Protein backbone atom coordinates (compact mmCIF):
# COMPACT_ATOMS: atom_id res chain seq x y z
CA UNK A 1 0.00 0.00 0.00
CA UNK A 2 1.57 3.30 -1.01
CA UNK A 3 1.96 6.18 1.38
CA UNK A 4 -1.13 8.44 1.38
CA UNK A 5 -0.47 11.77 -0.35
CA UNK A 6 -2.39 13.66 2.33
CA UNK A 7 -3.30 12.38 5.74
CA UNK A 8 -4.65 14.01 8.86
CA UNK A 9 -5.62 12.63 12.21
CA UNK A 10 -7.81 14.41 14.72
CA UNK A 11 -6.88 17.72 13.12
CA UNK A 12 -8.38 20.92 14.56
CA UNK A 13 -8.19 24.21 12.71
CA UNK A 14 -9.29 27.76 13.46
CA UNK A 15 -8.43 31.40 13.54
CA UNK A 16 -6.91 33.51 16.33
CA UNK A 17 -7.08 30.70 18.88
CA UNK A 18 -10.75 30.04 18.15
CA UNK A 19 -11.41 26.55 16.84
CA UNK A 20 -13.59 26.46 13.74
CA UNK A 21 -13.67 22.73 13.14
CA UNK A 22 -12.00 19.78 14.83
CA UNK A 23 -11.75 15.99 14.83
CA UNK A 24 -10.89 15.80 11.15
CA UNK A 25 -9.26 12.51 10.10
CA UNK A 26 -8.93 11.08 6.61
CA UNK A 27 -6.34 10.04 4.05
CA UNK A 28 -6.01 10.72 0.33
CA UNK A 29 -4.24 8.05 -1.71
CA UNK A 30 -2.38 8.78 -4.95
CA UNK A 31 -4.86 9.46 -7.72
CA UNK A 32 -7.77 9.99 -5.37
CA UNK A 33 -10.14 12.93 -5.39
CA UNK A 34 -11.71 13.98 -2.10
CA UNK A 35 -14.47 16.54 -1.74
CA UNK A 36 -14.75 18.64 1.41
CA UNK A 37 -18.37 19.67 1.80
CA UNK A 38 -20.53 21.59 4.24
CA UNK A 39 -22.52 24.79 4.59
CA UNK A 40 -20.65 28.00 4.08
CA UNK A 41 -18.73 29.20 7.11
CA UNK A 42 -18.24 25.67 8.44
CA UNK A 43 -14.48 25.92 7.97
CA UNK A 44 -13.78 24.33 4.60
CA UNK A 45 -11.35 27.00 3.46
CA UNK A 46 -9.70 27.08 6.86
CA UNK A 47 -9.23 23.30 6.76
CA UNK A 48 -7.80 23.40 3.23
CA UNK A 49 -5.25 26.05 4.18
CA UNK A 50 -4.13 24.03 7.17
CA UNK A 51 -3.96 20.78 5.19
CA UNK A 52 -1.82 22.44 2.54
CA UNK A 53 0.48 23.82 5.22
CA UNK A 54 -0.35 27.48 4.57
CA UNK A 55 -1.60 28.01 8.13
CA UNK A 56 -0.68 26.03 11.24
CA UNK A 57 -3.25 23.64 12.68
CA UNK A 58 -4.46 24.11 16.25
CA UNK A 59 -4.26 20.46 17.25
CA UNK A 60 -3.72 17.06 15.72
CA UNK A 61 -1.32 15.95 13.01
CA UNK A 62 -1.25 16.09 9.26
CA UNK A 63 1.08 14.76 6.62
CA UNK A 64 1.67 15.71 3.00
CA UNK A 65 3.64 13.34 0.76
CA UNK A 66 4.75 11.47 3.85
CA UNK A 67 6.15 14.53 5.63
CA UNK A 68 4.56 15.60 8.89
CA UNK A 69 3.67 19.29 8.87
CA UNK A 70 5.10 20.95 11.92
CA UNK A 71 7.96 18.46 11.98
CA UNK A 72 9.78 20.30 9.20
CA UNK A 73 12.15 23.22 9.31
CA UNK A 74 11.29 26.27 7.25
CA UNK A 75 13.32 25.25 4.21
CA UNK A 76 11.82 21.78 4.20
CA UNK A 77 8.37 23.26 4.57
CA UNK A 78 8.88 25.57 1.60
CA UNK A 79 10.25 22.71 -0.49
CA UNK A 80 7.14 20.72 0.36
CA UNK A 81 4.83 23.58 -0.61
CA UNK A 82 6.43 23.58 -4.06
CA UNK A 83 5.09 20.09 -4.67
CA UNK A 84 1.60 21.18 -3.70
CA UNK A 85 -0.72 23.31 -5.81
CA UNK A 86 -3.31 25.56 -4.21
CA UNK A 87 -6.13 27.33 -5.92
CA UNK A 88 -7.64 30.00 -3.70
CA UNK A 89 -11.34 30.65 -3.32
CA UNK A 90 -10.80 34.26 -4.36
CA UNK A 91 -8.33 33.46 -7.18
CA UNK A 92 -5.63 35.66 -5.56
CA UNK A 93 -3.97 36.44 -8.87
CA UNK A 94 -1.20 39.03 -8.75
CA UNK A 95 -2.91 42.04 -10.16
CA UNK A 96 0.13 43.73 -11.66
CA UNK A 97 1.10 40.67 -13.72
CA UNK A 98 -0.58 39.28 -16.82
CA UNK A 99 -2.12 35.81 -16.63
CA UNK A 100 0.90 34.31 -18.40
CA UNK A 101 3.24 36.08 -15.98
CA UNK A 102 1.15 34.79 -13.08
CA UNK A 103 1.77 31.23 -14.24
CA UNK A 104 5.41 31.95 -15.05
CA UNK A 105 6.27 33.31 -11.63
CA UNK A 106 6.42 29.93 -9.82
CA UNK A 107 8.40 28.55 -12.76
CA UNK A 108 10.82 31.45 -12.61
CA UNK A 109 11.40 30.88 -8.94
CA UNK A 110 11.48 27.11 -8.79
CA UNK A 111 12.25 25.57 -12.19
CA UNK A 112 15.54 25.82 -14.00
CA UNK A 113 14.29 26.53 -17.47
CA UNK A 114 14.80 29.67 -19.51
CA UNK A 115 12.39 32.43 -20.46
CA UNK A 116 11.28 30.77 -23.70
CA UNK A 117 10.48 27.49 -21.97
CA UNK A 118 8.61 29.35 -19.22
CA UNK A 119 6.46 31.10 -21.76
CA UNK A 120 5.70 27.80 -23.54
CA UNK A 121 4.74 26.16 -20.26
CA UNK A 122 2.59 29.09 -19.18
CA UNK A 123 0.70 29.03 -22.48
CA UNK A 124 0.30 25.26 -22.15
CA UNK A 125 -1.20 25.57 -18.67
CA UNK A 126 -3.45 28.43 -19.72
CA UNK A 127 -4.51 26.38 -22.75
CA UNK A 128 -5.52 23.54 -20.45
CA UNK A 129 -7.99 25.82 -18.69
CA UNK A 130 -9.13 27.45 -21.94
CA UNK A 131 -7.44 30.79 -21.44
CA UNK A 132 -4.87 30.84 -24.21
CA UNK A 133 -6.51 33.89 -25.78
CA UNK A 134 -6.31 35.83 -22.53
CA UNK A 135 -2.66 35.07 -21.72
CA UNK A 136 -1.54 38.68 -21.96
CA UNK A 137 -4.46 40.21 -20.12
CA UNK A 138 -4.27 41.50 -16.57
CA UNK A 139 -6.49 39.96 -13.87
CA UNK A 140 -8.64 43.09 -13.73
CA UNK A 141 -9.50 42.67 -17.41
CA UNK A 142 -11.07 39.21 -17.13
CA UNK A 143 -14.25 37.81 -15.63
CA UNK A 144 -14.50 36.07 -12.27
CA UNK A 145 -14.80 32.64 -13.88
CA UNK A 146 -11.74 33.28 -15.99
CA UNK A 147 -9.84 34.40 -12.90
CA UNK A 148 -10.74 31.10 -11.22
CA UNK A 149 -9.39 29.15 -14.16
CA UNK A 150 -6.25 31.29 -14.25
CA UNK A 151 -5.78 30.55 -10.55
CA UNK A 152 -5.98 26.85 -11.41
CA UNK A 153 -3.45 27.23 -14.23
CA UNK A 154 -1.08 28.89 -11.78
CA UNK A 155 -1.62 26.09 -9.26
CA UNK A 156 -0.68 23.60 -12.00
CA UNK A 157 2.49 25.44 -12.99
CA UNK A 158 4.92 23.14 -11.20
CA UNK A 159 3.05 19.87 -11.95
CA UNK A 160 2.08 19.37 -8.30
CA UNK A 161 1.55 15.92 -6.86
CA UNK A 162 -1.20 17.21 -4.61
CA UNK A 163 -3.72 19.82 -5.60
CA UNK A 164 -6.03 21.77 -3.30
CA UNK A 165 -8.93 23.47 -5.06
CA UNK A 166 -11.14 25.79 -3.03
CA UNK A 167 -14.51 26.01 -4.80
CA UNK A 168 -13.12 25.63 -8.33
CA UNK A 169 -16.50 25.58 -10.07
CA UNK A 170 -18.41 28.14 -8.01
CA UNK A 171 -19.59 30.90 -10.30
CA UNK A 172 -18.76 29.09 -13.54
CA UNK A 173 -21.26 28.38 -16.29
CA UNK A 174 -22.20 24.69 -16.70
CA UNK A 175 -20.09 24.18 -19.83
CA UNK A 176 -16.92 25.63 -18.33
CA UNK A 177 -17.63 23.80 -15.12
CA UNK A 178 -17.94 20.46 -16.93
CA UNK A 179 -14.69 21.15 -18.76
CA UNK A 180 -13.00 21.86 -15.46
CA UNK A 181 -14.25 18.48 -14.21
CA UNK A 182 -12.70 16.88 -17.30
CA UNK A 183 -9.42 18.57 -16.55
CA UNK A 184 -9.51 17.36 -12.94
CA UNK A 185 -10.15 13.79 -14.07
CA UNK A 186 -7.32 14.02 -16.57
CA UNK A 187 -4.98 15.30 -13.89
CA UNK A 188 -5.97 12.36 -11.72
CA UNK A 189 -5.72 9.73 -14.45
CA UNK A 190 -2.81 11.11 -16.43
CA UNK A 191 -0.51 12.33 -13.71
CA UNK A 192 -1.89 10.51 -10.68
CA UNK A 193 -2.41 13.85 -8.97
CA UNK A 194 -4.25 13.66 -5.67
CA UNK A 195 -6.89 16.32 -5.35
CA UNK A 196 -8.72 17.78 -2.37
CA UNK A 197 -11.49 20.09 -3.44
CA UNK A 198 -14.30 22.10 -1.93
CA UNK A 199 -17.49 21.95 -3.94
CA UNK A 200 -21.23 22.43 -3.63
CA UNK A 201 -22.20 20.92 -6.96
CA UNK A 202 -23.62 17.48 -6.34
CA UNK A 203 -23.34 16.21 -9.96
CA UNK A 204 -19.74 17.28 -10.10
CA UNK A 205 -18.95 15.70 -6.72
CA UNK A 206 -20.63 12.49 -7.83
CA UNK A 207 -18.50 12.42 -10.96
CA UNK A 208 -15.19 13.32 -9.41
CA UNK A 209 -14.97 12.42 -5.77
CA UNK A 210 -13.87 9.07 -4.44
CA UNK A 211 -15.32 10.15 -1.11
CA UNK A 212 -16.62 13.20 0.71
CA UNK A 213 -15.71 14.74 4.04
CA UNK A 214 -18.68 16.48 5.63
CA UNK A 215 -17.96 19.27 8.11
CA UNK A 216 -20.86 19.94 10.45
CA UNK A 217 -21.28 23.55 11.61
CA UNK A 218 -23.37 22.59 14.66
CA UNK A 219 -21.01 20.15 16.32
CA UNK A 220 -17.96 21.85 14.72
CA UNK A 221 -16.51 18.50 13.75
CA UNK A 222 -16.05 16.23 10.78
CA UNK A 223 -19.44 14.56 11.14
CA UNK A 224 -19.20 11.99 8.38
CA UNK A 225 -17.16 10.65 5.50
CA UNK A 226 -18.26 8.50 2.62
CA UNK A 227 -19.58 8.33 -0.89
CA UNK A 228 -22.16 10.88 -1.81
CA UNK A 229 -24.88 8.22 -1.99
CA UNK A 230 -24.10 7.14 1.57
CA UNK A 231 -25.14 10.62 2.67
CA UNK A 232 -28.52 10.33 0.99
CA UNK A 233 -29.49 7.17 2.86
CA UNK A 234 -32.04 7.48 5.68
CA UNK A 235 -29.53 6.41 8.33
CA UNK A 236 -26.95 9.02 7.30
CA UNK A 237 -25.91 11.97 9.45
CA UNK A 238 -29.02 14.23 9.45
CA UNK A 239 -27.11 17.44 8.72
CA UNK A 240 -25.23 15.88 5.85
CA UNK A 241 -28.35 14.26 4.44
CA UNK A 242 -30.20 17.54 4.61
CA UNK A 243 -27.28 19.35 2.94
CA UNK A 244 -26.98 16.92 0.06
CA UNK A 245 -30.66 16.37 -0.58
CA UNK A 246 -31.19 20.13 -0.81
CA UNK A 247 -28.27 20.51 -3.17
CA UNK A 248 -29.26 17.47 -5.21
CA UNK A 249 -32.60 19.02 -6.08
CA UNK A 250 -32.51 20.86 -9.39
Amino acid sequence: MPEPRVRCSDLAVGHDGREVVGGVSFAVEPGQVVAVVGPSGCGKSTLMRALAGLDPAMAGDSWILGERLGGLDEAGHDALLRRVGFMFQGSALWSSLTLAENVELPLREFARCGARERRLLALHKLGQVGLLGAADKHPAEISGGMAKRAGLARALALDPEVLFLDEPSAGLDPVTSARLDDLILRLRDGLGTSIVLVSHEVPSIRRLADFCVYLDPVSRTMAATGKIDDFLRPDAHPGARDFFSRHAQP
Partner: protein
Amino acid sequence: MPSMPEVADSPARFSLATEGACLRISLAGDWTKDGPLPDFPQLRDGSEVRWSVEELGKVDSALPAWIQGLERAAPPGVSFRHEGLPPRIRGWVLLASADAESDGGEESLPWIARLGLWATLSKASWLRAVSHIGELALGLARLLVGRAKVNWQEFPQLLRTTGPDALPITLLLGFLTGVIMAYVGMIQLGKVGANIYVANLVGLAMAREMGALMTGVVACGRTSTAFASHLGSMNVSQETDALRAIGLRPVEYLGVPRLLAVLAVLPLLSVFATAAGILGGMAVAVGYGMSAEQYANQVIEAVSVRSFLTGLIKAHAFALIVAWAGCYRGHVARRNARGVGEAATTAAVLGITLLVVADAAFAVLFNLFAFY
Protein backbone atom coordinates in the same frame (compact mmCIF):
# COMPACT_ATOMS: atom_id res chain seq x y z
CA MET B 1 13.07 13.53 -2.04
CA PRO B 2 15.34 16.40 -3.03
CA SER B 3 13.79 19.83 -2.65
CA MET B 4 14.84 20.91 -6.13
CA PRO B 5 14.45 18.57 -9.09
CA GLU B 6 17.67 17.31 -10.58
CA VAL B 7 19.05 18.93 -13.69
CA ALA B 8 18.23 16.85 -16.74
CA ASP B 9 21.05 14.36 -17.40
CA SER B 10 20.36 13.91 -21.07
CA PRO B 11 19.12 17.03 -22.79
CA ALA B 12 15.88 17.18 -24.72
CA ARG B 13 16.50 16.62 -28.42
CA PHE B 14 14.83 15.37 -31.59
CA SER B 15 15.75 14.12 -35.02
CA LEU B 16 13.88 14.65 -38.27
CA ALA B 17 13.11 12.21 -41.06
CA THR B 18 11.13 13.01 -44.21
CA GLU B 19 8.88 10.27 -45.56
CA GLY B 20 7.20 11.74 -48.62
CA ALA B 21 4.89 14.58 -47.53
CA CYS B 22 5.21 13.46 -43.96
CA LEU B 23 7.77 14.72 -41.48
CA ARG B 24 8.61 12.40 -38.63
CA ILE B 25 9.95 13.95 -35.45
CA SER B 26 11.64 11.49 -33.13
CA LEU B 27 11.94 12.64 -29.54
CA ALA B 28 14.70 11.63 -27.17
CA GLY B 29 16.16 12.70 -23.85
CA ASP B 30 14.63 14.34 -20.79
CA TRP B 31 11.86 16.84 -21.54
CA THR B 32 11.44 18.62 -18.22
CA LYS B 33 11.03 22.10 -16.84
CA ASP B 34 14.61 21.99 -15.59
CA GLY B 35 16.46 22.00 -18.87
CA PRO B 36 16.43 23.99 -22.08
CA LEU B 37 14.08 22.82 -24.81
CA PRO B 38 15.34 22.65 -28.39
CA ASP B 39 14.42 25.28 -30.96
CA PHE B 40 11.45 24.50 -33.17
CA PRO B 41 12.25 22.84 -36.51
CA GLN B 42 11.29 24.68 -39.71
CA LEU B 43 8.05 23.16 -41.03
CA ARG B 44 7.16 23.36 -44.69
CA ASP B 45 3.60 24.47 -45.47
CA GLY B 46 1.40 21.52 -46.36
CA SER B 47 3.50 18.91 -44.57
CA GLU B 48 2.15 16.44 -42.07
CA VAL B 49 3.93 15.98 -38.76
CA ARG B 50 4.06 12.59 -37.05
CA TRP B 51 5.81 11.67 -33.85
CA SER B 52 7.86 8.80 -32.66
CA VAL B 53 9.69 8.36 -29.40
CA GLU B 54 13.00 6.70 -28.78
CA GLU B 55 14.87 6.70 -25.49
CA LEU B 56 12.48 9.24 -24.05
CA GLY B 57 13.73 9.97 -20.54
CA LYS B 58 12.04 12.00 -17.84
CA VAL B 59 9.00 13.88 -19.09
CA ASP B 60 6.78 16.48 -17.50
CA SER B 61 4.46 19.10 -18.91
CA ALA B 62 7.40 20.72 -20.70
CA LEU B 63 6.90 18.25 -23.57
CA PRO B 64 3.23 19.00 -24.28
CA ALA B 65 4.06 22.69 -23.82
CA TRP B 66 6.77 22.43 -26.49
CA ILE B 67 4.53 20.50 -28.87
CA GLN B 68 1.81 23.10 -28.54
CA GLY B 69 4.32 25.88 -29.06
CA LEU B 70 5.36 24.13 -32.29
CA GLU B 71 1.72 23.90 -33.36
CA ARG B 72 1.23 27.60 -32.79
CA ALA B 73 4.42 28.50 -34.61
CA ALA B 74 3.71 26.26 -37.63
CA PRO B 75 2.28 27.64 -40.87
CA PRO B 76 -1.49 27.11 -41.08
CA GLY B 77 -1.19 24.38 -43.74
CA VAL B 78 0.78 22.01 -41.48
CA SER B 79 -1.22 19.18 -39.96
CA PHE B 80 -0.28 17.25 -36.84
CA ARG B 81 -0.98 13.59 -36.09
CA HIS B 82 -0.39 12.82 -32.47
CA GLU B 83 -0.87 9.03 -32.52
CA GLY B 84 2.83 8.34 -32.11
CA LEU B 85 3.01 10.12 -28.76
CA PRO B 86 2.70 8.26 -25.47
CA PRO B 87 -1.03 8.27 -24.57
CA ARG B 88 -0.52 10.47 -21.51
CA ILE B 89 1.24 13.21 -23.49
CA ARG B 90 -1.28 12.96 -26.31
CA GLY B 91 -4.11 13.50 -23.86
CA TRP B 92 -2.50 16.67 -22.57
CA VAL B 93 -1.85 18.05 -26.02
CA LEU B 94 -5.36 17.33 -27.25
CA LEU B 95 -7.07 18.73 -24.17
CA ALA B 96 -5.31 22.06 -24.35
CA SER B 97 -5.65 22.39 -28.14
CA ALA B 98 -9.38 21.80 -27.97
CA ASP B 99 -9.72 24.50 -25.35
CA ALA B 100 -7.54 26.89 -27.23
CA GLU B 101 -9.80 26.62 -30.25
CA SER B 102 -12.97 27.15 -28.29
CA ASP B 103 -11.64 30.25 -26.64
CA GLY B 104 -10.71 32.18 -29.75
CA GLY B 105 -7.39 33.95 -29.38
CA GLU B 106 -7.03 37.71 -29.62
CA GLU B 107 -5.37 38.87 -32.79
CA SER B 108 -2.12 40.66 -32.32
CA LEU B 109 -2.17 43.89 -34.29
CA PRO B 110 0.74 45.07 -36.42
CA TRP B 111 2.56 47.96 -34.86
CA ILE B 112 1.19 50.50 -37.31
CA ALA B 113 -2.36 49.55 -36.39
CA ARG B 114 -1.48 49.70 -32.74
CA LEU B 115 -0.21 53.20 -33.38
CA GLY B 116 -3.64 54.07 -34.71
CA LEU B 117 -5.19 52.52 -31.67
CA TRP B 118 -2.85 54.54 -29.56
CA ALA B 119 -3.91 57.74 -31.31
CA THR B 120 -7.58 57.09 -30.65
CA LEU B 121 -6.74 56.09 -27.11
CA SER B 122 -4.98 59.34 -26.51
CA LYS B 123 -7.88 61.20 -28.09
CA ALA B 124 -10.15 59.25 -25.79
CA SER B 125 -7.99 60.23 -22.85
CA TRP B 126 -8.44 63.90 -23.76
CA LEU B 127 -12.15 63.35 -23.85
CA ARG B 128 -11.95 61.61 -20.50
CA ALA B 129 -10.05 64.51 -19.00
CA VAL B 130 -12.60 67.00 -20.29
CA SER B 131 -15.50 64.90 -19.11
CA HIS B 132 -13.89 64.54 -15.69
CA ILE B 133 -13.60 68.32 -15.45
CA GLY B 134 -17.23 68.53 -16.53
CA GLU B 135 -18.36 66.05 -13.90
CA LEU B 136 -16.43 67.90 -11.23
CA ALA B 137 -17.91 71.24 -12.30
CA LEU B 138 -21.35 69.69 -12.35
CA GLY B 139 -20.74 68.38 -8.84
CA LEU B 140 -19.84 71.89 -7.67
CA ALA B 141 -22.93 73.30 -9.35
CA ARG B 142 -25.11 70.69 -7.70
CA LEU B 143 -23.48 71.57 -4.44
CA LEU B 144 -24.46 75.21 -4.87
CA VAL B 145 -28.10 74.29 -5.37
CA GLY B 146 -27.87 71.83 -2.49
CA ARG B 147 -28.36 68.66 -4.50
CA ALA B 148 -24.88 67.19 -4.43
CA LYS B 149 -24.09 64.13 -2.35
CA VAL B 150 -20.63 64.73 -1.02
CA ASN B 151 -18.51 62.91 1.51
CA TRP B 152 -18.19 65.69 4.10
CA GLN B 153 -17.03 63.21 6.69
CA GLU B 154 -13.48 63.21 5.36
CA PHE B 155 -13.42 66.98 4.79
CA PRO B 156 -11.79 67.96 8.12
CA GLN B 157 -9.09 65.38 7.60
CA LEU B 158 -8.54 66.56 4.03
CA LEU B 159 -8.18 70.13 5.29
CA ARG B 160 -5.64 69.06 7.84
CA THR B 161 -3.49 66.95 5.54
CA THR B 162 -3.45 69.51 2.75
CA GLY B 163 -2.96 72.49 5.08
CA PRO B 164 -1.25 72.34 8.47
CA ASP B 165 0.59 69.14 7.64
CA ALA B 166 2.14 70.81 4.60
CA LEU B 167 2.98 74.06 6.39
CA PRO B 168 6.52 73.25 7.60
CA ILE B 169 7.82 72.12 4.21
CA THR B 170 6.08 75.03 2.46
CA LEU B 171 7.62 77.53 4.89
CA LEU B 172 11.05 76.03 4.46
CA LEU B 173 10.92 76.09 0.66
CA GLY B 174 9.51 79.62 0.66
CA PHE B 175 12.25 80.84 2.97
CA LEU B 176 15.00 79.26 0.90
CA THR B 177 13.55 80.67 -2.31
CA GLY B 178 13.76 84.13 -0.76
CA VAL B 179 17.35 83.47 0.30
CA ILE B 180 18.36 82.35 -3.20
CA MET B 181 16.79 85.35 -4.90
CA ALA B 182 18.33 87.74 -2.40
CA TYR B 183 21.80 86.36 -3.14
CA VAL B 184 21.32 86.69 -6.88
CA GLY B 185 20.02 90.23 -6.39
CA MET B 186 22.81 91.25 -4.02
CA ILE B 187 25.49 90.20 -6.49
CA GLN B 188 23.90 91.83 -9.54
CA LEU B 189 22.48 94.96 -7.90
CA GLY B 190 25.65 95.40 -5.86
CA LYS B 191 27.54 95.98 -9.12
CA VAL B 192 25.57 99.17 -9.69
CA GLY B 193 25.39 100.07 -6.00
CA ALA B 194 21.67 99.46 -5.83
CA ASN B 195 21.74 96.91 -2.99
CA ILE B 196 18.69 98.43 -1.41
CA TYR B 197 16.49 97.23 -4.30
CA VAL B 198 17.03 93.63 -3.27
CA ALA B 199 14.04 94.14 -1.02
CA ASN B 200 11.91 95.18 -3.99
CA LEU B 201 13.11 92.23 -6.04
CA VAL B 202 12.46 89.63 -3.36
CA GLY B 203 9.18 91.14 -2.22
CA LEU B 204 7.69 91.41 -5.69
CA ALA B 205 8.92 88.05 -6.92
CA MET B 206 7.63 86.24 -3.84
CA ALA B 207 4.26 87.98 -3.82
CA ARG B 208 3.57 87.73 -7.54
CA GLU B 209 5.29 84.52 -8.57
CA MET B 210 7.28 82.35 -6.29
CA GLY B 211 5.01 82.15 -3.23
CA ALA B 212 2.15 80.61 -5.14
CA LEU B 213 4.37 78.54 -7.43
CA MET B 214 6.43 76.95 -4.66
CA THR B 215 3.28 76.20 -2.69
CA GLY B 216 1.76 74.64 -5.80
CA VAL B 217 4.80 72.46 -6.40
CA VAL B 218 4.81 71.23 -2.81
CA ALA B 219 1.09 70.49 -3.07
CA CYS B 220 1.61 68.54 -6.29
CA GLY B 221 4.18 66.38 -4.55
CA ARG B 222 2.13 65.85 -1.41
CA THR B 223 -1.53 66.32 -2.19
CA SER B 224 -2.02 65.37 -5.84
CA THR B 225 -0.10 62.15 -5.38
CA ALA B 226 -2.02 61.31 -2.20
CA PHE B 227 -5.35 61.91 -3.93
CA ALA B 228 -4.34 59.89 -6.96
CA SER B 229 -3.12 56.88 -5.05
CA HIS B 230 -6.08 56.90 -2.67
CA LEU B 231 -8.70 57.19 -5.39
CA GLY B 232 -6.75 54.77 -7.57
CA SER B 233 -6.69 52.10 -4.92
CA MET B 234 -10.40 52.62 -4.33
CA ASN B 235 -10.75 51.84 -8.02
CA VAL B 236 -8.74 48.66 -7.66
CA SER B 237 -10.81 47.33 -4.80
CA GLN B 238 -14.01 48.27 -6.64
CA GLU B 239 -14.95 50.73 -3.90
CA THR B 240 -15.79 53.37 -6.49
CA ASP B 241 -18.02 50.85 -8.27
CA ALA B 242 -19.72 50.17 -4.97
CA LEU B 243 -20.40 53.91 -4.60
CA ARG B 244 -21.91 53.98 -8.07
CA ALA B 245 -23.93 50.88 -7.27
CA ILE B 246 -25.72 52.68 -4.44
CA GLY B 247 -26.40 55.65 -6.67
CA LEU B 248 -23.60 58.04 -5.75
CA ARG B 249 -21.41 59.81 -8.29
CA PRO B 250 -17.81 58.99 -7.35
CA VAL B 251 -16.38 62.10 -8.98
CA GLU B 252 -18.78 64.29 -7.06
CA TYR B 253 -18.75 62.33 -3.83
CA LEU B 254 -14.97 62.08 -3.58
CA GLY B 255 -13.76 64.84 -5.88
CA VAL B 256 -15.74 67.85 -4.66
CA PRO B 257 -14.55 67.74 -1.04
CA ARG B 258 -10.97 67.37 -2.21
CA LEU B 259 -11.28 70.30 -4.57
CA LEU B 260 -12.83 72.49 -1.90
CA ALA B 261 -10.27 71.50 0.71
CA VAL B 262 -7.36 72.46 -1.52
CA LEU B 263 -9.10 75.62 -2.66
CA ALA B 264 -9.59 76.66 0.94
CA VAL B 265 -6.12 75.92 2.13
CA LEU B 266 -3.64 76.48 -0.69
CA PRO B 267 -4.03 80.31 -0.95
CA LEU B 268 -3.39 80.54 2.79
CA LEU B 269 -0.29 78.41 2.46
CA SER B 270 0.82 80.63 -0.39
CA VAL B 271 0.57 83.71 1.84
CA PHE B 272 2.71 81.95 4.42
CA ALA B 273 5.25 80.97 1.78
CA THR B 274 5.42 84.54 0.52
CA ALA B 275 6.03 85.85 4.01
CA ALA B 276 8.70 83.22 4.63
CA GLY B 277 10.44 84.15 1.38
CA ILE B 278 10.48 87.82 2.27
CA LEU B 279 11.98 86.92 5.64
CA GLY B 280 14.59 84.78 3.88
CA GLY B 281 15.53 87.76 1.74
CA MET B 282 15.73 89.90 4.85
CA ALA B 283 18.13 87.45 6.47
CA VAL B 284 20.49 87.77 3.52
CA ALA B 285 20.07 91.53 3.28
CA VAL B 286 20.87 91.96 6.94
CA GLY B 287 23.93 89.77 6.39
CA TYR B 288 25.04 92.23 3.71
CA GLY B 289 24.72 95.15 6.13
CA MET B 290 21.23 96.45 5.41
CA SER B 291 19.05 97.13 8.45
CA ALA B 292 15.89 95.10 8.95
CA GLU B 293 13.81 98.26 9.12
CA GLN B 294 15.19 99.59 5.86
CA TYR B 295 14.40 96.25 4.19
CA ALA B 296 10.86 96.15 5.59
CA ASN B 297 10.07 99.69 4.48
CA GLN B 298 11.37 98.97 1.03
CA VAL B 299 9.21 95.82 0.75
CA ILE B 300 6.08 97.65 1.91
CA GLU B 301 6.70 100.32 -0.64
CA ALA B 302 7.35 97.87 -3.47
CA VAL B 303 4.62 95.30 -2.97
CA SER B 304 1.32 96.89 -3.94
CA VAL B 305 -2.05 95.43 -3.09
CA ARG B 306 -2.34 94.50 -6.75
CA SER B 307 0.84 92.45 -6.65
CA PHE B 308 -0.42 90.68 -3.60
CA LEU B 309 -3.76 90.01 -5.31
CA THR B 310 -1.95 88.68 -8.37
CA GLY B 311 -0.32 86.04 -6.23
CA LEU B 312 -3.59 85.22 -4.52
CA ILE B 313 -5.46 84.79 -7.80
CA LYS B 314 -2.74 82.47 -9.03
CA ALA B 315 -2.86 80.48 -5.81
CA HIS B 316 -6.55 79.80 -6.35
CA ALA B 317 -5.96 78.66 -9.90
CA PHE B 318 -3.09 76.47 -8.78
CA ALA B 319 -5.33 74.94 -6.13
CA LEU B 320 -7.78 73.88 -8.83
CA ILE B 321 -4.93 72.34 -10.83
CA VAL B 322 -3.47 70.46 -7.87
CA ALA B 323 -6.81 69.01 -6.80
CA TRP B 324 -7.92 68.16 -10.32
CA ALA B 325 -4.65 66.47 -11.34
CA GLY B 326 -4.84 64.18 -8.31
CA CYS B 327 -8.53 63.34 -8.63
CA TYR B 328 -8.34 62.82 -12.38
CA ARG B 329 -5.32 60.52 -12.35
CA GLY B 330 -6.83 58.54 -9.48
CA HIS B 331 -10.17 58.34 -11.28
CA VAL B 332 -8.68 56.87 -14.46
CA ALA B 333 -6.07 54.69 -12.74
CA ARG B 334 -5.76 51.16 -14.14
CA ARG B 335 -7.24 48.61 -11.83
CA ASN B 336 -4.14 46.95 -10.49
CA ALA B 337 -1.34 47.58 -8.06
CA ARG B 338 0.91 49.08 -10.72
CA GLY B 339 -1.91 51.34 -11.84
CA VAL B 340 -2.00 52.97 -8.43
CA GLY B 341 1.70 53.75 -8.56
CA GLU B 342 1.36 55.15 -12.06
CA ALA B 343 -1.57 57.28 -10.94
CA ALA B 344 0.55 58.93 -8.25
CA THR B 345 3.49 59.57 -10.56
CA THR B 346 1.43 60.90 -13.43
CA ALA B 347 -0.57 63.10 -11.05
CA ALA B 348 2.61 64.84 -9.89
CA VAL B 349 3.93 65.25 -13.43
CA LEU B 350 0.60 66.45 -14.78
CA GLY B 351 0.12 68.85 -11.86
CA ILE B 352 3.55 70.48 -12.09
CA THR B 353 3.35 70.77 -15.88
CA LEU B 354 -0.03 72.44 -15.69
CA LEU B 355 1.20 74.77 -12.93
CA VAL B 356 4.01 76.09 -15.07
CA VAL B 357 1.78 76.37 -18.15
CA ALA B 358 -0.82 78.24 -16.12
CA ASP B 359 1.83 80.53 -14.65
CA ALA B 360 3.02 81.44 -18.14
CA ALA B 361 -0.55 82.07 -19.22
CA PHE B 362 -1.06 84.35 -16.22
CA ALA B 363 2.09 86.29 -17.08
CA VAL B 364 0.71 87.00 -20.55
CA LEU B 365 -2.79 87.83 -19.28
CA PHE B 366 -1.70 90.18 -16.52
CA ASN B 367 0.55 91.89 -18.99
CA LEU B 368 -2.24 92.29 -21.55
CA PHE B 369 -4.57 93.82 -19.00
CA ALA B 370 -1.77 95.84 -17.41
CA PHE B 371 -2.55 94.33 -14.02
CA TYR B 372 0.62 95.00 -12.05
